[in-house]
């Protein structure tokens, strides 16, 4: 009894103490909850008055705050309820992380995945490109442009525009717009402008619907890289000349201001436009006057009225939403994805029914920094490459969602048949290594005289222990696990490899400035330039010389033979000759190991839930729509064919 009293007393005095401290600190900075919840202590005479004051103030503040909160909640609830009915909205996950910065295709930091993703197969929801790439058959399909043709010498590319194409303000999309878009990119040196101005000389407007792209010519009078020029058609969004001029005017033609302009009032040509964008979600609404209803294009409107992307905290949150049917199309890596339908019996499917479940087209690869002592030795690089247990990476890190290197042996090309035609794999057989060949790797190192002399279990090169850091961004779980398996391989061959998973931004700094030992990055996906873009990714000296290199050859590997081949490929049209070139590049890649593919992977993950919508593209449906999440390149055709589940 006595002890209980003591406890009560001590509790009382503690709360009194807290209160007096609060009072002493003044009302403005007090934590409202604590003060309002400790009225029991107010009997303490010394602090009574001040405490009461504080409490009153605090309560008022709280009331105000609650009112505001309720109002806000009401607003959002109302907006949610009557604006995006579930059966008119297609929900996405795994594309947009964090809040949108701007709607400006020239900006380097838009963080606006749904509206602006410009690559070999650009996202066609808000802005549109001239043509759409279809990775199923490797062809370009008309969008704003209706046809394109090169002249005989491959110096001029003529593009015809679809006369029906309109901006969402009702005016026509003209050749002037196309040319002005490019000129603006170049004028303000956006990354697109900087990239393409090496290969494109100028745009010439012939008439309203015809534009001619003049390629930059080399000393031999041929275009430097016609592949890259063709790729412009599928990659770069067309913007309206009149609108661009408005932006330039309001920014005073200041390059930084133009590139950072938020463009929230943008004039676009795509089927959707901005509706809601905040830190909770991004919603696009269909433009019912979209020009694509014309018979010359789709002949109808896309089916979902709204495209919505809730901003999830992490992959796990997105995955839960997918399995509960709150997300229709999910671009996320899901461990053991087959269990969603095999065990949980959910209406979820992927592109393929069986492993690898997706259309694998890119190769996440580890790059060795050849400027580091030790890694400049090809034996060390090759030994690490040989010792890695790739089957373990594919089975556990990738959860079986990748074909193995036995099925698709290593080379510079990806696992797509169209690309594999370019390499003669019989010639590469001697250079391939078997999975986790620790013995072979040890023998190779012993032979090269790279041995452990001081008995610490780690081999030395020039008296220095071979000790490297393998890095990739934190939280990229399949990549993190892959790097761990690489590190485990190092342990087996006497090379100390530790993993290092920094925040993505500091990883980018390391990778783009060649400040790493071993790093991991993914090869370009399918596009008009393939397999050339993959060859560039592994070997390009030009990339290595960039001050901030996002493109490839991060380890600064220089090889004159490879460079000569890279220069010859773009203008070569003879297929046999090309095959010879790519085979030769593959030989160098496997022999010298400047970079090693760790697995095959889809460009985009693709899992769909058929609780609300159905008729999504699938591998066996014969519709030739690629699994690009209903948004990228020709994959957007899926939006016109979706149906509601009965």
């Amino acid at each position: 009894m006595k002890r209980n009293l003591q406890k009560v007393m001590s509790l009382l005095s503690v709360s009194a103490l807290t209160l007096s401290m609060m009072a002493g600190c003044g009302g403005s900075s007090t934590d409202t909850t604590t003060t309002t919840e400790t009225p029991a202590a107010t009997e303490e005479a010394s602090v009574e008055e001040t405490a009461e004051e504080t409490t009153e103030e605090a309560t008022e503040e709280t009331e105000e705050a609650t009112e505001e909160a309720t109002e806000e909640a009401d607003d959002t609830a109302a907006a949610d309820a009557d604006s995006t009915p579930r059966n008119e909205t297609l929900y996405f996950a795994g594309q947009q992380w964090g809040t949108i910065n701007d709607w400006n295709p020239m900006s380097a930091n838009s963080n606006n995945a749904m509206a602006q993703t410009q690559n070999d197969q650009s996202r066609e929801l808000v802005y549109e490109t001239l043509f759409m790439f279809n990775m199923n058959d490797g062809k370009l399909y008309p969008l704003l442009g209706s046809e394109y043709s090169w002249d005989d010498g491959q110096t001029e590319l003529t593009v015809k525009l679809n006369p029906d194409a309109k901006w969402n303000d009702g005016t026509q999309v003209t050749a002037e717009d196309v040319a002005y878009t490019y000129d603006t990119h170049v004028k303000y040196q956006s990354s697109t402008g900087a990239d393409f101005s090496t290969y494109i000389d100028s745009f010439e407007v012939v008439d309203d619907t015809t534009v001619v792209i003049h390629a930059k010519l080399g000393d031999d009078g041929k275009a430097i890289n016609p592949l890259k020029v063709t790729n412009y058609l599928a990659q770069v969004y067309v913007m309206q000349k009149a609108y661009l001029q408005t932006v330039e005017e309001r920014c005073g033609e200041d390059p930084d201001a133009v590139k950072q302009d938020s463009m929230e009032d943008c004039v676009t040509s795509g089927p959707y436009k901005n509706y809601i964008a905040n830190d909770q979600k991004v919603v696009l609404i269909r433009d019912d006057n979209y020009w694509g209803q014309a018979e010359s294009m789709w002949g109808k409107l896309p089916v979902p009225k709204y495209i919505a992307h809730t901003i999830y905290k992490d992959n796990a949150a997105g995955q839960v939403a997918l399995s509960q049917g709150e997300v229709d199309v999910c671009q996320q890596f899901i461990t053991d994805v087959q269990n969603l339908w095999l065990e949980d019996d959910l209406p979820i499917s992927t592109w393929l029914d069986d492993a690898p479940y997706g259309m694998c087209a890119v190769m996440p690869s580890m790059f060795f920094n050849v400027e580091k002592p030790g890694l400049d030795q090809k034996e060390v690089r090759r030994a690490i490459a040989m010792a890695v247990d790739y089957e373990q990476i594919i089975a556990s890190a990738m959860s079986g969602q990748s074909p193995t290197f036995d099925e698709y042996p290593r080379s510079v090309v990806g696992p797509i048949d169209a690309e594999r035609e370019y390499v003669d794999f019989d010639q590469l057989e001697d250079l391939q290594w078997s999975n986790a060949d620790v013995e072979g790797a040890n023998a190779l190192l012993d032979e090269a005289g790279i041995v452990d002399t001081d008995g610490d279990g780690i081999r030395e090169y020039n008296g220095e222990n071979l000790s490297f850091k393998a890095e990739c961004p934190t939280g990229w779980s399949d990549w993190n696990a892959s790097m761990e398996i690489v590190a485990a391989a190092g342990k087996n061959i006497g090379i100390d490899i530790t993993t290092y998973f920094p925040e993505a931004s500091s990883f980018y700094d390391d990778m783009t400035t060649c400040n790493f030992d071993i790093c991991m990055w993914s090869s370009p996906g399918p596009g008009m330039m393939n397999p050339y873009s993959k060859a560039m990714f592994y070997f390009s000296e030009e990339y290595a010389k960039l001050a901030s290199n996002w493109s490839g050859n991060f380890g600064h590997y220089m090889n004159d033979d490879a460079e000569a081949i890279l220069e010859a490929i773009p203008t070569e049209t003879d297929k046999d000759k090309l095959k010879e070139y790519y085979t030769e590049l593959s030989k160098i890649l496997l022999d010298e190991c400047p970079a090693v593919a760790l697995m095959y992977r889809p460009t985009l993950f693709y899992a769909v839930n058929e609780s609300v919508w159905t008729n999504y593209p699938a591998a066996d449906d014969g519709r030739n729509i690629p699994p690009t999440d209903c948004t990228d390149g020709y994959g957007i055709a899926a939006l016109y064919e979706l149906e509601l589940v009965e």
Partner: protein
Amino acid sequence: MKNTIKQIFHSGKFLFGFVIFLFILLMCIIYPIFVTADPLQMIGQGNFFKPGTYVSVEESTLEKSYTLQLPKQFSKLDAVLDVDTRAKIQEFLIKQAGVAESEIDVTDAEGLVSLWQANYDPNTKYSGLTSAKRKALKRLDSDIKAAMKDSGVIVAEKNEEGELEQSKVIKDTDYININDVTKKTFILGTDNFGRDVLTELVAATKSSLKIGLLAGLIATAIGLLLGLLAGYVGGLVDNIIIFITNLFTVIPSFVILILISYSVGDKARGIIMVGVIIGLTSWPWTTRSVRSQVISLRNRDHVNLSKLSGHSMFRIIFTDILPYIASYVVMAMILQISSGILAEAQLSMIGLGPATTETATLGLMMQWAMQYSAHLNGSWWAYFPVVILIALISFSLNLMNTGMDQVFNPQLRD
């Protein structure tokens, strides 16, 4: 001393905590004697294999088989056709195949199957179905086919001409003795890397205990030293030490922990380093409480007598003050060990723990289980035992602490 220990062991709480802790400790010592495999070896190729015994399929087919006439508990068909499946079949037959509802009797398995076989064609694309449903029906069809098949699987091998030649037929009454074939038991399954969870768990507990012990020792040593100095010497020394201690108390120690771990880099982050870092950030409260105890002790008569006798400061501290707070310090250390283990788990969970390929720790196991969403795909064995073990360790340590408190603290004594 002997008497004190006896007293401590009389406390039920202490004894209970001690037994749990001893059990964990013994597990860490004894298990590795029997299982010598490398806890980090990636055995399973794939994520999260279920707990159980895995037998070699190849050997099982080749091994001498025994015929056992075991009564079958259920027919294969009944196993496939549960209530939901029957409803599915019925729905398909009515909607897609156009069979009249009156013709279907869901209770008659054989009849249902013959209707199914007559009406379902796996190569037809039925309209009005989502592709997920179409795929589910296809799987169901192959299940039914498998269940309807006569017993017996044919094993065939390629002969010299490359043609298949039947070498064996396996009947459904064929059994093998599990002792005849190579097998591997994963009591707690495997993790996302295909490592044996139980072996890893034991190794992880060991390293977590090491980290906790090291962190606890360091934190207590620093805390004790500073507390004694501040409390006994007083004055300026006290002011300075308390100033520093206050600084560290105000800044959340976990934040300092993250900052130090991050700046140390992965390379140096082994078990010892992590232990030291945790120890270096968690001493302030020990300092504060030791100091207050010392302040109340230093004006006691026996201390004053020692002073008068001209004993040196160190002698007074070690003979006249330390023994009086020894029990308190031991209890504080137990709490420090417990919080050190928790701190390691927290650090590893945000990726700042020791290297995955070098050591196994409880926090790292949790981190990888989370990254591969074990909690979403029902792979409880990858994270639940870890959680239980962390809870047990800190529970047992805290229990021991409370037990000792009851013995040493006269106010709490019954």
